[in-house]
């Protein structure tokens, strides 16, 4: 898949909750195929202090309109300014970047576990994985109810469970405290996860214990996003690997976690 730098048109910027926004970007020409786990690198010009681009996973693609969307969570200066962009603004984006999750086989039962902005690739994967909804189980974790976003647009593609640290929505605790983990984990053929490192490590451990195929999508500090700077390395069993080109999706067997 050829990577390009393009000026995209921001066609929508929707606030999803107190710190999450959905940005919809339109390309002037036909979009290449983009898969869950892949990401884009966004230039944020409207801020005095931002120098490097900021990476964001793709949340969804609409090939008819040549649009794709990003789920942007306000973390620091860059993400904050990005959420103030308005429809009609042009944004320079490098895409598509990185590897995608291994799509499940036709009859797989899959568990998707997302937290924080890691929710984006999980929803995308649920939508396009092509499985029967009853075989797609998605656990989404957050600190509290107000940190969850409305996922009704994705409801049709699977079964959704929520956890919150304060118990304000769904199960109380971390994602791995959800009964799915204690009761049904062995029933899944594949586990996919994206979110905070600690969360992914906990999920990976559960999957590894039961010897279930598990892929995680790592987020780390990137300068380029397309494999030239060698800043984004993760220590793997085969030495340092670039997260932006050899990942961000890794099978947990490769990691030294």
């Amino acid at each position: 898949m050829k990577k390009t730098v393009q000026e995209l048109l921001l066609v929508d910027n929707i606030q999803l909750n107190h710190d999450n926004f959905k940005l919809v970007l339109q390309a002037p020409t036909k979009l290449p195929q983009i898969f869950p786990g892949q990401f884009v690198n966004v230039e944020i010009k409207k801020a005095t202090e931002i120098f490097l681009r900021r990476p964001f996973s793709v949340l969804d693609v609409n090939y008819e309109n040549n649009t794709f969307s990003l789920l942007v969570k306000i973390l620091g200066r860059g993400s904050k300014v990005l959420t103030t962009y308005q429809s009609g603004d042009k944004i320079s984006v490098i895409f598509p970047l990185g590897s995608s999750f291994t799509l499940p086989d036709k009859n797989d039962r899959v568990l998707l576990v997302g937290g924080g902005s890691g929710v984006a690739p999980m929803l995308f994967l649920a939508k396009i994985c092509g499985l029967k909804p009853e075989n797609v189980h998605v656990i989404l974790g957050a600190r509290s109810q107000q940190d969850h976003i409305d996922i009704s647009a994705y409801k049709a593609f699977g079964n959704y469970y929520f956890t919150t640290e304060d118990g304000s929505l769904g199960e109380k605790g971390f994602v791995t405290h959800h009964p799915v983990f204690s009761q049904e984990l062995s029933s899944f053929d594949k586990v996919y996860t994206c979110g905070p490192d600690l969360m992914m490590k906990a999920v990976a451990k559960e999957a590894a214990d039961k010897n279930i195929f598990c892929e995680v999508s790592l987020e780390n500090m990137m300068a380029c996003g397309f494999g030239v700077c060698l800043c984004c390395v993760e220590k793997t069993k085969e030495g340092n690997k670039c997260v932006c080109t050899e990942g961000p999706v890794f099978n947990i067997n490769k990691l030294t976690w």
Partner: protein
Amino acid sequence: MVDLSVRIKDLTFKNPVLTASGTCGFGEEIADFMDLSKLGGIVMKGTTLKPREGNDYPRMAETPSGMLNAVGLQNKGVDNFIQNIYPNIKDIDSQFIVNVNGSTIEEYVELTEKINELDKIPAIELNISCPNVKEGGMAFGVSCPSAEAVVRAVRKVYSKPMIVKLSPNVTNIAEIAKAVEGQGADAVSLVNTFLGMAVDANTRKPVLSTITGGLSGPAIKPIALRMVWQVYQAVKVPVVGMGGIMNATDAIEFMLAGASAVQVGTAIFIDPTIPVQIVSGIQSYMETHGIQSASELTGSLQI
């Protein structure tokens, strides 16, 4: 038609714009974004005799108008380069330059001997200025005697154009430039990164695994430009200028200050098409200002 070509010794570059070592991989990684043959040259990722894993993560910190890196010369070693990379690049119509690194003079020499065998590598850039390795690297580049020793040893085994890459972390860069010129350097390139540091006030820890790292990007441009100007006045060999070049205007500033060619580094991370944009930007500038040959720009600053 203006003539964009520039020369370093007997080597002609079709235009004065090269990509800087460590910021463009081996060229292949940026080939999606541009036709590599539009570039004057490509200085490939720093290569060492033996494979190197580089430093631990985190290796990067964003800074005002720049970044720190602490990659530490991660590379698969020269043999891997010769077997797996050289075959892919040797037919691309640009100048592929190997950035040569070592922890000891012997390593520099041995590595250079291997590169010398490669017909389609027209030149080396001898890096005596990497701030991110424990041994060798910048240590060679910050004193005249040690810089001279490396250059002298490598010169003995290499007769193609040798560009020596200088460290800016010195009191008097013109002196170092003169010293390496004295040992037979065919050109000097400058600057490598400035030794810098980032601290995370929240965790009260350094941001980089190596505590210090190399600063690059527009932040350093004013200092790099001054150094190019000083070195240009001190040596007779061509100067290759770099440090924060983001657009054609920046590149032209370096040429006016004395650079025969420029390298574009960190800008590639922001937009990998910048190097080719700079090529056409220089061309328009020359057309607008009635300049026939790019080499006329070099050192033409009016004082």
